[in-house]
């Protein structure tokens, strides 16, 4: 039946996915098995996204389904069964920019791929990024920005991290108008064109 759950999630059948989850729980299925099925679903969806066969609408819906399933499953977990995290990432939309959709998708994809994500939200100052990296010990920082006005705040954030002595931290940037020109301008280590690129970069650095 977990295979049915995986198919419901990957076919974007929200109501079916929730119904199957409830049936699995009622039948006494271990909640950990259900969460593993969710992770497997997201691996499939992530691969499709990478191949251009999945879209933002589907990623957002998948995120909604997973949070709804988690809400059903987590109260029945014996203990916190979170799998071991493979690394820490500090993420945020840079100062002056309040767009969050792409940042949220990146955070979600990093999370389901095993990263411990500290999401600082939007309009985040360079000082807040520095503080969060110092507090969490994260080795990867993701800077998001939708507008062209994000170019300078990204550059200032990269500089602030260096000035704080956090030279071993890798910085990736992404967003609507971000490209290789902006990577060079900001001094970031890499730019990712989408959420799966962000996951691949974070994995390569962890």
């Amino acid at each position, binding site marked *: 039946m977990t295979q049915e759950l995986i198919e419901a999630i990957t076919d974007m059948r929200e109501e079916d996915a929730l119904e199957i989850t409830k049936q699995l729980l009622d039948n006494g299925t271990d909640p950990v098995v259900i969460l593993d099925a969710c992770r497997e679903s997201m691996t499939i969806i992530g691969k499709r996204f990478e191949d251009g066969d999945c*879209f*933002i*609408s589907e990623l957002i819906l998948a995120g909604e389904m997973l949070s709804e399933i988690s809400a059903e499953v987590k109260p029945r977990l014996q203990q916190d069964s979170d799998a071991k995290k493979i690394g820490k990432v500090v993420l945020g939309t840079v100062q002056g*920019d309040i*767009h969050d959709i792409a940042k949220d998708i990146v955070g979600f994809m990093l999370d389901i791929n095993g990263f411990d994500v500290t999401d600082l939200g939007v309009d985040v100052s360079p000082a807040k990024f520095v503080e969060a990296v110092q507090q969490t010990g994260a080795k990867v920082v993701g800077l998001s920005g939708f507008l*062209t*006005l994000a170019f300078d705040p990204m550059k200032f954030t990269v500089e602030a991290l260096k000035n704080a002595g956090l030279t071993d931290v890798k910085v990736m940037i992404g967003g*609507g*108008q971000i490209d290789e020109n902006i990577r060079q301008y900001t001094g970031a280590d890499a730019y990712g064109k989408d959420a799966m690129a962000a996951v691949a970069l974070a994995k390569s650095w962890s």
Partner: protein
Amino acid sequence: MFVRPDNWNKMSPLERRKARLDAWQSAPVPFASSEAEANYKERIERLRKIYDMEPHDRPIADLFMGANEYIVRRKGIQGKDIIYDHEKLREPVLEFHREFQPDVSVAVLPYPGKPWDMLDFKTYIWGGQKLPDNLAIQAVEGEYMRADEYKDFAADPTAFWLKQYLPRAYGALGPLAMLPDFTRISESVDTIDLLVPFGLPPFQEMLKRMMDAGNELMRILGIVGQTGAMVAGEGFPAMGFNIVKTPFDYLGDTLRGTKGILMDMYRHPKDLLAATEAYVPVLIKSIVGASDRANAPSAMYVLHKGADGFMSKEQFEKFYWPTWKQVMLALYEEGITSYLFIEGSYNQRLEYLAEMPEKSLVCHFDKSDMKRVKEVLSDKFIIAGNVPASLMATGTTDDVRACCASLMDLFGDVPGYIMAHGCYFENSTDEKICAFIDSVKK
């Protein structure tokens, strides 16, 4: 104001298009000198030939969708000034045109900061208000219509906008919700329903505030209009369009938010479709009216949620394209050209655009594959784009020159091409702007 000729009903779409372009091209301009007049006529004639896809001496370079803030920021103007101090913008705008002699005028968008404050406008934030002074403006995504209100919207989009959306978008306009349903006011006693809100203190206070904001707006438009007339009078024609959106983007950008509308395709597909369909006649009437009032031959769509990556082809075909196409075809019938400002990538959408009639579109690209654009669209439509904003902001002058040169190589032989940016930028250099402008001059 565009006045339809007497034989309008007998004219074909392309004859109507010609009538609108003629009216735009011959609109009176207070020329500063005979030299300015000659320059204006030469420039608008070149643009006209591009719009008509007829032989002309060279493409034009249009800075409007890229440098509209840079032209004043280069003189130290801040975002806050763009919103609040329209008088302060005049000299930098005029100076830019005199110094750079662009092919068409570049206008700073007329943001009415003080009226926004007076009406407690909520769907944007701006410099001098909630954004730092150096920034101009950003949209605040939100859910201004709940999913369970789709049926209200589809039943009467105009009433929904008036009585539900506007009170949510402007804090001071809450009393609009008190208005009656106008289409029920018919019998003698219905005058009571019509007038009751107007007799109540909260509604009267709102009307007074709207009138005060309206007076302030007229003051701003006076300044902005004078600047625009001076720019035209010194020899620089405007592109001639109103800004509009597709039915799906009005619902998504404005009412439901990105996440909301993308989820609605799964959770409320019938309601969403009914709403986009109900929107079509309302939107056509509204755009035609606005085009007439402004004597604008084109309607410029800022395109958002139909781009590659946002939704699948099947979803585009079901939710986005049919109603948008209906609107564009209706505008075509009215002689209005649809100017598409295509944000992001549209590589998977080009074949849909190709379904439209010849000369019905100007297709302005941001991140699409321009070789495919040429193959699929350049025989039928005017093409514009796509020098990256990132290059204008952070590249070298040689980078800009090389990018423009490759676009000229690609589009030098098509019937209508406009060198343009894919997105606006705040920062650049005068040298890069010159390289962009000069790139179309052989």
